[in-house]
């Protein structure tokens, strides 16, 4: 498995300040993992360097080796992995030759790291202030007497409002964005010279992402630190990095200054990645690779007459949850006070979906969009309001018994996480067959024929049908989930962030597939997402939700081009995209 010679120009020569030794210099790094089938090279002859004060972006899809590269630099590869070849120099010190003890001094003090899931990086049973104070004390940055004051100061630096109060907060009391800021405060506490940020904002809302990234870039600039930003998001890399390295399957395919890489990408893979990224002005077909098979134009199912009754009609839908403390009868009797007003996750929303229409439901986490889709799906009972589907009031039918309703097969869902939504004990074929076995008629040969047909329809190779979910890739699992949802030709399919867990190139293919299926089968979609650019590609109309209410509703173009609500404007401004 020798890597072929690279077809890119020699890289990593900083334009002007060549006399300087780069802060981090990685040459010909190769990392191997021992597996059941012999060693696998996850990273092959990767070279990159970061100058002082520079922000380098490492961009690639899952499996490209971008995280493994950073783990190798930090020497925190898991037991099966080892650095097979190459050198890593940190301000001239060869890190490969250091002992574990010396390496521990470097980690945290010289190089620190922030990870994807901030909540997992914090100790759940210690207050965040104490955690920062611990780090300051351990590295001699504070004394017992002033640790609290210094920790509060650190919290203020990462823009935690009311820092003195938040010192005593536990991680679960803070939002994801605030937790990430705490993690940043911890990472920067010892004033390291290099910060490695591995997907620091994946899983955060776009507005939070912007706040966190702005903070990181401001703090690192103020302290003259260098940053290695690992991300799958080209837009993020373009917005925050000086230089970008693109990785594919363990190799660096392109490396250039970020303004030039997005204007004139050299490598075919970079171009493909750029094309697949949803951006303003791009249409759905534009996301697919150039020169690929153009999907044949499909016969568009006739649109319903505008005056026909809507497929789904939701009015004044409300979901309330009791607040903590309102629970026990005894407590309420003892306290004698009125119980606190219940929390309204969904607060009186109304909308309609016509036959053959796609409606986008956009909002950030906690806005009530998932609760809404669960209620429409009849997995959750609404507190009040009505849901009329195909002329029947389904909101009043209890969720528990809805599985037996004849309407169950008419309304289906594609879940957010393709891995989590497939039963690990069922093969792909069995998963697709499940709705047919429960609610359809086909059995035996007819069932097998239908499964094959569905597999063809969603582009899943038939040979993969007898595999278990863990033997399939993310995109293949997404296809299984889609095939299961459309197995009985439902009228309405709710797509709950169906591409959130997928790479951009896979996302492009899946979005196109969904569009083709809609046209061919005449289904309606409710597309739930946090990303307006993705929603726009597939939807005619868009609803923007915030705190359980609808703040804006209109055609996709109008909402994106001329938003009326301030919140929508904020949302659109926060989405980073490559400057094209």
């Amino acid at each position, binding site marked *: 498995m020798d890597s072929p010679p690279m077809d890119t120009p020699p890289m990593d020569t900083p334009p002007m300040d060549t006399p300087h030794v780069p802060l981090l210099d990685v040459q010909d790094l190769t990392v191997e993992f021992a597996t*059941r089938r012999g060693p696998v090279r996850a990273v092959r002859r990767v070279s990159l360097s970061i100058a002082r004060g520079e922000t380098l972006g490492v961009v690639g899809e899952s499996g490209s080796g971008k995280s493994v590269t950073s783990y190798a630099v930090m020497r925190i590869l898991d037991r099966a992995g080892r650095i097979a070849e190459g050198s890593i120099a940190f301000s001239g010190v060869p890190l490969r030759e250091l002992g574990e003890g010396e390496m521990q001094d470097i980690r945290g003090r010289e190089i620190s790291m922030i990870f994807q899931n901030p909540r997992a990086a914090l100790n759940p049973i210690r207050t965040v202030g104490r955690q920062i104070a611990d780090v300051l004390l351990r590295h001699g940055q504070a004394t017992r007497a002033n640790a609290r004051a210094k920790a509060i100061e650190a919290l203020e630096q990462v823009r935690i409002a009311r820092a003195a109060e938040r010192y005593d907060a536990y991680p679960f009391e803070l939002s994801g964005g605030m937790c990430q800021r705490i993690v940043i405060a911890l990472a920067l506490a010892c004033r390291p010279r290099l910060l490695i940020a591995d997907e620091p904002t994946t899983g955060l809302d776009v507005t939070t992402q912007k706040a966190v990234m702005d903070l990181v870039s401001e703090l690192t600039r103020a302290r003259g630190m260098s940053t290695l930003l690992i991300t799958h998001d080209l837009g993020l890399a373009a917005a925050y990095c000086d230089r970008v390295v693109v990785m594919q399957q363990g190799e660096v395919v392109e490396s250039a200054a970020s303004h030039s890489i997005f204007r004139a990408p050299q490598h075919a893979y970079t171009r493909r990645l750029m094309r697949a990224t949803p951006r303003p002005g791009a249409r759905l077909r534009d996301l697919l690779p150039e020169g690929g098979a153009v999907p044949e134009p499909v016969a568009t199912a006739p649109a319903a007459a505008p005056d026909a009754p809507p497929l789904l009609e939701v009015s004044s839908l409300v979901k309330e949850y009791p607040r903590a403390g309102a629970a026990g009868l005894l407590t309420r009797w003892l306290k004698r006070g009125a119980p606190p007003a219940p929390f309204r996750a969904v607060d009186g929303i109304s909308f309609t979906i016509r036959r053959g229409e796609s409606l986008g439901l956009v909002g950030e986490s906690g806005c009530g969009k998932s609760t809404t889709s669960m209620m429409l*799906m009849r*997995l959750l009972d609404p507190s009040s309001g009505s849901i009329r589907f195909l002329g029947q009031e389904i909101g009043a039918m209890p969720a*528990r*018994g809805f*599985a*037996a309703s004849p309407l*169950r*097969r008419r309304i*289906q*869902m594609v*879940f*957010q*996480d393709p891995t*989590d*939504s*497939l*039963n*690990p*004990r069922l*093969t792909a*074929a*069995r998963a697709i*067959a*499940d*709705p047919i*076995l*429960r*609610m359809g008629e086909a*059995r*035996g040969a007819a*069932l*097998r024929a239908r*499964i094959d047909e569905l597999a063809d329809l969603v582009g899943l190779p038939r*040979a993969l*049908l*007898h595999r*278990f979910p*863990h*033997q399939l890739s993310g995109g293949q699992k997404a296809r299984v*989930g889609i095939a*299961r*949802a459309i197995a009985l030709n439902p009228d309405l399919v709710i797509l709950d962030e169906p591409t959130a867990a997928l790479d951009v190139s896979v996302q492009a293919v899946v979005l196109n597939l969904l569009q083709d299926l809609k046209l061919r089968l005449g289904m309606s979609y409710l597309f739930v997402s946090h990303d307006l650019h993705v929603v726009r590609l597939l939807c005619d109309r868009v609803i923007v939700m915030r705190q359980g209410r609808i703040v804006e509703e209109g055609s996709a173009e109008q909402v994106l081009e001329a938003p009326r609500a301030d919140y929508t404007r904020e949302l659109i401004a926060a989405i980073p995209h490559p400057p094209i």
Partner: protein
Amino acid sequence: MAETPALPAEAPSPLAALLRHARHVVAGNPVTALAFLLFLLLLLCAVLGPVLAPHDPLASDTTRALAAPSARHPFGTDHLGRDILSRVVVAARLDMGIAIFSVALVFLLGGLAGVAAGFFGGWTDRIVGRLADTIMAFPLFVLAMGIVAALGNTVTNIVIATAIVNFPLYARIARAEAAVRREAGYVQAARLTGNGEIRVLLTTILPNILPIMAVQMSLTMGYAILNAAGLSFIGLGVKPPTPEWGIMVAEGASYIVSGEWWVALFPGLALMLAVFTFNLLGDGLRDIVDPQRRS
């Protein structure tokens, strides 16, 4: 679940796939192979015990009482001159039988109650939880003694007592595992595909917690054997002259002081071997049942 097999024609038969996978797991972990061999040995004794035994386990011969191990009696003889090897081999059926039946019973009762508690929550959860707490409030062996003493001194009652004593363990594990999976994506998906709640519980949740339960079964199997032997040791349950490891250890205990160590040692070793085997088996079983490990 009846329709599961009839699926794609090109898929290998599930049994063949399982065997291939089992071979892979066993090859990767020799300890598992050892555990399976020991298990087969125990099973062989249990099934063919009376045929394998060189002597009649009940025939006493006072002229040969308390004979030391020899070529004729490899494990020696007891105070009535019965061949200990034969008795140890024949006893496997009774001890294993008690263990297997009691574990199967508790797996059904405790597993189902626990899964239902975790899945439905509310009152089901409260009732099952309090029941488990009540049982846990007693010293388990004393509780087992009490149950056997109250219900009567039979093998069936030993099985029931052992099952009841193990109930909280199964119920709690099943409850915790079911509660985690209750809102999992694939469980929601199963609801969407038209499965009613009971069906989701039985066909989606239960199979997914089987790997964890399998390990538990194997571990408690060892405990069940000890429990049955312990009850017999103190004179409850199996009555002499039926060969049973617990009674044999009890009978032999008084002779250790006078130098006839073999009377108690060999049944004790058999007991230890059985418990050891089941504990080892637990890990191997988990690897085989877990679909994640299949590739």
